[in-house]
């Protein structure tokens, strides 16, 4: 090629590269720099949410990231007590079947429209169609919602349901209140406009980069005293950026280097490193969740209650939890199905079968069950490493008791699918978030949920629990349920575990709770 041509080609390449660099911003999202905010809180999260619509998914991260944007009729104050939020008051009549809820007003949506009963009814109706929890409430309790004037609604049930307010307050798959216009435009399809009543308004979501919310200056505050998610909460930082950082070491490194102000869900092994750093503060979130070894009670080995009892008898729960979490700060060895942090529901009734670590008893039970060494197929995923480590620790305990355990290690999406097929497994390992009231987990309440606990007595107790509003009566029913739980062993709950978060010491006023909120928080 002629030298002159080569020179022109080379110059052309240089010009193209320069154009590529210059043009890269315009073809990537967020080409312009965001306006300088007075205070910005940067939160490193575990990843991108599947959507920004908390009604349509029970995935925690959706509601966590939109915690400041959307609000609910009720919410949780300190100690997870249920308090009105967009509601101002309510009455329950007709034997617990009719809820009349007065709405707080004036309440502005972030599009500057005033919230009325039409918005709330539209939101609830959508929720009952798209949310797993809403669908259940509509189907099992015949729930319907209607307006009762401009600032009140009625919720009619076919039978009493004492946990209704908990469902209305729950963030995950909960009835976030949207403008009726947004509900009408969206229907049951994916939400594309994110307008709520919270102290922060949605600005932008660039998957893989960040979710940005900004203070909503015209936020309509409640007059009740501020308490966790409820009352007179204030959005104090001007802007919050949620950065998806799937790699846990990267979240930690970014926090240490000052790139992030908050790092969620860190490995407990990093606790000492954070605690010894004067620029950081470790936070342990209690209560948080509990692991569940869910047995397949529809088909196969685990339809036999003695085999399930043998499985429970063989396990040393302290060793399991130590294997999973390493640091005793992050777990509690307790047979109570509710953690100590929820004293209303904490109980040791019926827990003598918990944490027996008794292979001899387990062998005896297996012999009575007629077990002859058939493989116990245990579905587990490494995606939640703590579950995998616990399963690995459990295997020798079970083998010592005479079980022939086969760990089936799959990715999480595969586990979620395969657990629906009773022919494929005998047990699967998952975990569940704590719930403010018993029991909100489908694993225990829904006979159609994988595991298929159809025990008539358990269903009867749950019905009684749902129908009773008296706390002392509910506690008595719950104690009976827990006793039955340990007799029938529908699943194994090894204990409670806690979450590890860390914040920069520049952040003040942060309260570690299950779903992180950033009200009344400052960054200095």
């Amino acid at each position: 090629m002629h030298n002159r041509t080569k020179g022109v080609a080379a110059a052309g390449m240089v010009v193209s590269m320069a154009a590529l660099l210059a043009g890269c911003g315009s073809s990537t999202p967020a080409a312009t720099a965001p306006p300088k905010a007075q205070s910005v809180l940067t939160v490193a999260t575990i990843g991108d949410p599947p959507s920004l619509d908390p009604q349509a998914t029970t995935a925690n991260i959706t509601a966590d990231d939109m915690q400041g944007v959307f609000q609910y009729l009720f919410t949780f104050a300190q100690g997870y007590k249920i308090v009105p939020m967009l509601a101002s008051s309510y009455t329950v009549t007709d034997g617990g079947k009719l809820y009349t809820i007065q709405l707080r007003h004036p309440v502005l949506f972030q599009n500057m429209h005033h919230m009325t009963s039409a918005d709330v009814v539209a939101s609830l109706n959508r929720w009952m169609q798209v949310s797993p929890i809403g669908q259940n409430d509509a189907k099992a309790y015949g729930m319907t919602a209607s307006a009762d004037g401009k600032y009140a609604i009625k919720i009619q049930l076919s039978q009493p349901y004492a946990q209704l307010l908990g469902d209305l307050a729950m963030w995950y798959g909960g009835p976030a209140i949207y403008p009726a216009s947004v509900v009408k435009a969206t229907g049951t399809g994916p939400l594309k406009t994110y307008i709520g009543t919270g102290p922060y308004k949605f600005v932008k979501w660039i998957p893989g980069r960040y979710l940005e919310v900004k203070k909503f200056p015209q936020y309509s505050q409640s007059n009740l005293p501020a308490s966790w998610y409820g009352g007179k909460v204030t959005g104090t930082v001007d802007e919050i950026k949620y950065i998806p950082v799937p790699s846990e070491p990267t979240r930690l490194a970014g926090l240490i280097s000052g790139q992030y102000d908050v790092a969620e869900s860190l490995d407990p092994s990093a606790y000492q490193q954070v605690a010894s750093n004067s620029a950081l503060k470790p936070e342990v979130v209690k209560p948080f969740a509990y692991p569940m070894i869910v047995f397949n009670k529809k088909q196969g080995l685990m339809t036999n209650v003695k085999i399930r009892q043998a499985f429970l008898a063989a396990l040393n729960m302290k060793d399991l939890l130590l294997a999973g979490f390493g640091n005793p700060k992050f777990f509690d060895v307790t047979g109570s199905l509710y953690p100590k942090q929820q004293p209303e529901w904490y109980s040791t009734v019926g827990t003598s079968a918990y944490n027996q670590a008794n292979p001899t008893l387990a062998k005896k039970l297996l012999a009575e069950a007629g077990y002859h060494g058939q493989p116990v197929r245990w579905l587990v995923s490494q995606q939640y490493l703590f579950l995998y480590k616990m399963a690995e620790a459990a295997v020798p305990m079970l083998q010592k008791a005479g079980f022939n355990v086969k760990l089936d290690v799959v990715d999480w999406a595969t586990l979620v699918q395969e657990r629906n097929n009773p022919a494929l497994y005998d047990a699967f390992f998952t975990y569940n978030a704590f719930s403010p009231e018993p029991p909100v987990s489908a694993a225990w309440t829904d006979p159609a949920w994988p595991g298929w606990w159809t025990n008539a007595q358990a269903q009867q107790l749950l019905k009684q629990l749902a129908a009773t509003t008296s706390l002392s009566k509910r506690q008595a029913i719950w104690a009976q349920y827990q006793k039955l739980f340990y007799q029938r062993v529908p699943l194994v709950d090894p204990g409670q575990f806690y979450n590890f978060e860390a914040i920069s010491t520049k952040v003040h006023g942060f309260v570690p709770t299950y779903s992180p909120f950033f009200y009344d928080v400052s960054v200095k």
Partner: protein
Amino acid sequence: MAIPVMLIVATIVFALVHLTPGNPAALMLGPQATPGQVHALMAQMGLTKPLFVQYEDWLVALLHGNLGESIFLNEPVTTAILQHVIPTLLLTAVAFVFSLVIGLSVGVMAARRRGSRADQLLMVAAMIGMSLPEFWGGLLLMLVFAENLRVLPAAGYAPPSLDIWIWLRYLLIPGFIMGFVQSALVARMTRATLIEVMGQDYIRTARGKGVSEGVVIRRHAMRNALVPIVTVVGNLLIIFLGGDIAMETIFTIPGVGYLLYSSVLQRDYPIIAGISVLFGILYVVVNVLIDLSYLLIDPRVRY
């Protein structure tokens, strides 16, 4: 020939994606959903149709240039990929520069000092480079430069239009590690090819005429050694452009690799299939460009 290859690739990709266990509806609804609720959402998404019908719909759309719509991002697959391709392109550029600069320099140095202690040390370094797990090297550099020295950010991405230096600082560690690991291959190929070329008569003639060693290497030896080097470099480009999943995830760079990783976890079938098909096309295109480049490099090559 390329079109039948692409169709076969597309079919295999579709089958692999849809036959793998897991489904997006379950992941979208979250852990509390019952199988019935999951099935209802799958029906809404069209995932309960017979697989052959889904394949037919997808293939017809593909032949019209339509890769479908992302289940989770609620936007056309093409839009989603385009939004993520720029960070990958820019990371590729940085990694490419590092791999060429390091690889060619080390290769030339080793060839010139063939058989010496320096040559041996350089090749050992190249072997170590090739064996180094990228993610480990990346985390190590993150520990040193971000956590301890605080001269570079731990992770993230900013477009160059925001600030070119901020942009570069985000890509330095991942780009360097990617380039360093792949430079080993470039170095070894450069050394081997140069050694072969340096033994040719015309090189001996050039030296005999008094041409300096630098000119001998630059103008005579490298030019003739370029063909195999370009082949290796071209394949590097394909590796980089496919999106380095590990680096993009660890360093939170919203490129094609990160998109593919999150789509696989979520079973976002249209995105997985779309990226796989485009990667197939990319492979074909880059190989054609490599073949065409031989025409520019070596006038003796004729097609």
